[in-house]
């Protein structure tokens, strides 16, 4: 069964460094999303991506965040200058219509 895959599963980075989180959505998905979940807190929407552009973003998704789908398969989230409070699980999701399929997440630890 196809699934959304995310790499790496765990990333440790120093504060101020740039990180790129990668996702390979299911091939027939049209809509792509990034969510984050700080430990012990709710899943929060970051950004949605459709037709090679951002369709919606939350107030969390500020100028330090960016997304790309550079080659038609990978979908990336870049955090330019990480802060301690960026430590969280980051989930990629894809959807063709109503059903959104989530990846297993990347646990980002900023030290």
């Amino acid at each position, binding site marked *: 069964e196809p699934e959304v895959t995310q790499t790496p599963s765990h990333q440790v980075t120093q504060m101020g460094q740039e990180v790129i989180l990668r996702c390979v959505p299911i091939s027939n998905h049209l809509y792509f999303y990034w969510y984050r979940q700080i430990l012990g807190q709710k899943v929060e*929407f970051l950004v*949605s991506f459709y037709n090679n552009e951002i369709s919606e973003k939350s107030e969390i998704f500020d100028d330090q965040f960016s997304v790309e789908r550079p080659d038609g398969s990978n979908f990336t989230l870049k955090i330019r200058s990480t802060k301690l409070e960026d430590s969280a699980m980051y989930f990629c999701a894809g*959807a063709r219509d109503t*059903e959104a399929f989530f990846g297993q*997440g990347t646990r980002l630890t900023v030290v």
Partner: protein
Amino acid sequence: QKEVEQDPGPLSVPEGAIVSLNCTYSNSAFQYFMWYRQYSRKGPELLMYTYSSGNKEDGRFTAQVDKSSKYISLFIRDSQPSDSATYLCAAAYNTNAGKSTFGDGTTLTVKP
């Protein structure tokens, strides 16, 4: 006020019990309502979604939405230890589940 509020739990039940998980929401523009199951340190897994008011059944799981009271429920019949997980309710404005707004989650433990 949170847009989606979920009974916090945790909830512990014996195997075979009927489980009721509940959420309320504040934004009447929400049209799609989802239930996800999340195991520890894993991604949310979609269990069911419902459009507008009504019931939807899938095996041991039944989702109910009452838009008049802005109330969302998930019932699990004949609960099993494998049902132990955190259950997340979510709501969205449009069909692609775009900007889903999640509740905080309810952790369920089903004891053998």
